[in-house]
């Protein structure tokens, strides 16, 4: 039904997307909100790799360097360049809602990746639920600690939604256990900061059972600190993201005890894109399942959760 609406208003627009089905090759605009975090680099790679399988797809990658206004003008640029489809991984819900809507008006289908925009004026949303992952992490932690213990929480940038969700989800899950958070600090997703904060925690508390970090680099930084203090083996480390060459590898190395996958959805995005461009219908919401990787299951590729 979306595609019909596309062709409907596409002729009204001077440079709008020509009715997709007619085309031999398609240009897809991909706006990434920043390439500072490896996870997002991974997302771009997944998209690229997935697209390589389909020669008819030409993808233009843009990086907004964490600047919503830049990303917003990315969309504007895509519109005036008349791409066939836009994939956007927005930095912010609010500011990008209207640009996305504009693209839709221009008859360009939009796939929103990872972070949402407000309302439902987009073609398809693909993403995982940070809150849910946080909750699962909480449950897992509660179970391994037998429902009680001292936990250090190293938070991601708390002005960012993922940080907030991974925090609140986790807190929900442990709120009626005897687990107490003895030390929490904002390490802004950064490994050196995580190590720094962990050192403070270590010099303050002699009894730390587990470290819950909002991303794997954070967990790794904490581990480095603990190892330097010779206390790594007495503490469990849990991270989030589970990139194959990062978190998962840490688990196989026995550095982390568990990491929870936060899928990029890159591949899924390309599948959806192809469907849309071919005029097939796609679900409005694709919520990506997450997996947990632990010592036990890491070799078998982790287990799905949630």
């Amino acid at each position, binding site marked *: 039904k979306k595609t019909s609406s596309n062709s409907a208003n596409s002729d009204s627009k001077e440079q709008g997307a020509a009715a997709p089905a007619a085309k031999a090759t398609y240009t897809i605009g991909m706006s990434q909100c920043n*390439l500072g975090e490896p996870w997002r680099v991974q997302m771009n790679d997944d998209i690229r790799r997935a697209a390589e399988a389909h020669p008819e797809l030409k993808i*233009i*990658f*843009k*990086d907004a*360097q*964490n600047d*919503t*206004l*830049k990303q*917003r*003008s*990315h969309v*504007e*640029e895509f519109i*005036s*360049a008349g791409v066939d489809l836009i994939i956007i991984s927005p930095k*912010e*819900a*609010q*500011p990008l*809602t*209207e640009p996305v809507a504009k693209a839709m008006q221009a008859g360009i289908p939009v796939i929103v990746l990872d972070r*949402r925009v*407000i*309302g439902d004026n987009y073609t398809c949303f693909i993403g995982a*639920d940070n*809150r849910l992952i946080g909750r699962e992490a909480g449950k897992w932690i509660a179970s391994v600690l037998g429902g009680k213990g001292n936990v250090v929480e190293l938070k991601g*940038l*708390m*002005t960012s939604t993922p940080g*907030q969700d991974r925090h609140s989800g986790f807190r929900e899950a442990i709120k009626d256990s005897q687990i107490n958070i003895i030390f929490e600090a904002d390490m802004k997703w950064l490994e050196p900061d995580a190590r720094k904060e962990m050192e403070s925690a270590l010099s303050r508390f002699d009894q730390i059972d587990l470290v819950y970090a909002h991303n794997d680099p954070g967990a790794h930084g904490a581990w480095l600190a603990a190892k330097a203090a010779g206390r790594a083996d007495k503490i469990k480390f849990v991270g989030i993201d589970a990139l194959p060459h990062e978190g998962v590898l840490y688990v196989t190395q026995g550095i982390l005890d568990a990491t929870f996958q936060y899928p990029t959805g890159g591949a899924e995005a390309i599948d959806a894109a192809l469907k849309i461009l071919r005029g097939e219908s796609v679900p409005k919401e694709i919520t990506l399942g997450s997996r947990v990787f632990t010592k036990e299951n890491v070799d078998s590729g982790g287990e799905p959760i949630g």
Partner: protein
Amino acid sequence: MSEGRTEESEAFAAAPRSTTAPLRALLASPTATALLALCFVLALGFLFSGDGAFHKWTTHRDALRQASVYGILACGMTFVIITAGIDLSVGSVLGLVAVTFSTLSIHEAWPPWLAVPACLALGGACGAASGLVVAKWRIQPFIVTLAMMVFARGLAKTLSGGMKVSTAVQQADGSWTAAPVPGIFRLIDSRLLGDNVSVVSLIFLSCIVLSWIILSRLRWGRYLYAIGGNEEAARLSGVPVAAMKVMAYALAGVFAAVAGLCQAAQEQQGDPEAGLGYELTAIAIVVIGGTSLMGGRGGIGLTLLGTLTIGYLDKILSVNAVPEASRLMLTAVIIIAAVLLQRRNH
């Protein structure tokens, strides 16, 4: 910063100007060279037009809109730099004001004619505070404004509780619903003249005009130049040095506040992280225009040109979808090239 210091001997080199070869003098004037740099960048734009995107007016309109916020910051920065100072806090003040403005307009439902002046006052206060410490206790502006930068950021995060202040309200089920966007936001974020010029660009231009008046038509401006050129001489000539300095920093704060309003309106929210690192861009704009960090030289016209240069450079790389890594390196190379161009003409 060698520049400023060696000016004297350069002056030595450039014996009586303007008395002869007016054309040459004109060509060698900072304005002309800054213009040259801009043209250089524009030329690149037309060379690599991103499938003709650069030939569309909308592209230029957007380039202007993107550059505006930086440009507004740069206006304020110009005052401070002319007094041989520097203000690192503008980025954070922008963020602080963005948060405050959003809170007041969206959640406190203040009318614009109350919220806007309040925000400008807030920005001015931050600036004046830095200015006072700089002028009264003679502490290096760098460290004072660095402190203000950190402080304002912290304040922004406190006020906003670390969350973005947006119209979005998350329901229990995790879905989003949006409160209406305040009219003032829409107004600032709209376009005029048949959709051809965005309001923020007009705001930027009026900031330029205002600054121009202050700097080159009012006595105050003259004083700022004097202070930057030779503070002791200015003092001996009866210039109220301290007051003027405070004014310069206060102005920088006010302009940062204006930028904050624009930012909030365009993002339709107040992000406590907004403006992170903008100060560097603002300074770069002023310097690339040709205003010396040693103070006493330069002007707002140069800042205008600098803004366009940086803004277009950014836009060109973006419409050509140059990948991150190469974009950074290209930016560096082009900036140096542009500055060298200016140099050669001297």
